[in-house]
């Protein structure tokens, strides 16, 4: 991230007709800044910039270029999400019952509030309101910690319940045991519970020691499993209506109570929210840095770039969450 230093161009004007040596100041580096009224009046103006405005604009361009790469960085994950959801909508319907919408909504609000304080902090920096600036940065950091704490609660529940990517996916609770699912589809919950016994029968000969939850993959089932009684498509109607069974999960080897490859959702979930959370952590670090600079009284009308750029980064993190929240938590 660019860290321009700047403070004033006013002084530029202050020495109205700039003497000739001003133009040559870059050649001499820091040592000659004393002779340059612009740099003399702007302790945070880097020697390779002529004015605070130039320094600010350069830094702003830099941060926007960085944000551009961030958008493309996350684009890969959004692409994986889009393709997987298009292929297996039932997996997303199934998995979203395991996510806590209230916690997701709470985190959304926390991030939005922190975005306000971040934008306000930029204003404070521009107006050299040191105390308000520090207060707003502290609130922003507090919101970021709140966000991470809520994330911690969510993650630890998922770790505990075996809702993990890949082979680690061993859900302790079945879909019909979830209150969120029962409330919405009581009939489908009953069906799923009943039909799950088929899954158990299928799983047991393959892995005798396996827990009732069963192994993650439903692909390599022994031949006798297929001879077992399968519900017809009409019988599965309640599950289809609940979106729990999709056209591609109706193959004979699939578990009925759990869509095939449900674990991939949690792979996507952890990767997307994890990368986002990592950005929040980095953001906390940068805000602490800004707080220290603010405490030293560095910021004013001619030098607030760092606060502005940190806030822009923070808003982008907020922006990504604005999309992640409905995509992961609010699946219909």
């Amino acid at each position: 991230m660019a860290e321009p230093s700047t403070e004033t161009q006013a002084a530029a004007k202050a020495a109205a007709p700039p003497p000739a040596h001003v133009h040559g100041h870059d050649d001499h580096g820091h040592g000659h800044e004393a002779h340059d009224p612009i740099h003399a009046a702007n302790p945070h103006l880097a020697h390779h910039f002529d004015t605070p405005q130039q320094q600010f604009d350069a830094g702003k361009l830099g941060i926007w270029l960085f944000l551009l790469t961030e958008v493309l960085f996350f684009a890969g994950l959004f692409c994986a999400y889009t393709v997987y959801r298009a292929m297996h909508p039932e997996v997303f319907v199934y998995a979203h019952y395991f996510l806590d919408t209230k916690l997701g909504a709470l985190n959304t609000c926390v991030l939005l509030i922190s975005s306000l304080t971040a934008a306000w902090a930029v204003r404070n920096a521009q107006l050299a309101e040191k105390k308000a600036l520090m207060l707003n940065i502290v609130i922003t950091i507090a919101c970021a910690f709140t966000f991470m704490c809520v994330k911690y609660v969510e993650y630890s529940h998922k770790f505990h319940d075996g809702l993990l990517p890949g082979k680690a996916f061993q859900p302790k609770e079945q879909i019909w045991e979830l209150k969120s699912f029962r409330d919405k589809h009581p009939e489908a919950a009953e069906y799923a519970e009943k039909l799950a016994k088929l899954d158990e029968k299928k799983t047991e000969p393959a892995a005798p020691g396996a827990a009732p939850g069963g192994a993650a993959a439903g692909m390599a089932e022994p031949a006798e499993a297929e001879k077992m009684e399968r519900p017809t498509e009409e019988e599965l109607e309640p599950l289809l209506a609940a979106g729990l069974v999709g056209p591609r999960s109706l193959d004979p080897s699939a578990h009925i109570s759990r869509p095939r490859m449900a674990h991939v959702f949690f792979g996507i979930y952890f990767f997307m929210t994890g990368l986002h959370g990592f950005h929040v952590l980095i953001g906390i670090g940068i805000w602490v840095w800004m707080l220290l600079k603010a405490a030293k009284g560095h910021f004013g009308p001619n030098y607030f770039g760092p606060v502005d750029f940190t806030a822009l980064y923070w808003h982008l993190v907020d922006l990504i969450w604005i999309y992640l929240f409905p995509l992961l938590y609010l699946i219909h």
Partner: protein
Amino acid sequence: MSEDKPVADKPEAEPAEAAETAASSSPPPPSHDGSVRTTETTATKEERSHLELSAEPKPDEPKRNGGAHGAAAAHTHDAHGHDHGLAHTMPIPLLFGVLVALLVLTIATVAVTSIDLGAQGNLIVAMAIATVKAALVCTFFMHLLWDKKFNLVLFLTSVLFLILFLSMTTADRGENQHAIDEYRALQLGVK
């Protein structure tokens, strides 16, 4: 952008110019205090670069006093939320207005999930609300409304490539899904 440029190329900065002359008569101020005092002259510069972009009128320009009371002048000036310093300053009511809008939209997007709008309907509504929220954040919190247009173009470029990426991959998947399904059916049939 040379800062030594004479003020002649600023078409609409007359009041600010006056302030500038006032400020330029004082000696170069020292350190921190100085940076505040120099606010007025800075505003003129800013004025020049943002005149075309600024959506707000600047009726209070004459309110500014030149010289030593820069800090005080800056405060009254910015209480009205107009251009200031190197970039636009967000008025506090606007900040809170945007936050309220964002929170209301968040509630709306949660509430709308309880309404069945068809297989894709809910997703489309959720994405539409998210996009409105994103636009609010970009326009106001990220200052894009007042920022240099070039930064906006940069950002929109990333969005454009995001859309290209998603749409091409989705189209590819759609066209080849039947092959994937056939392959899977074949695999299962062999077993």
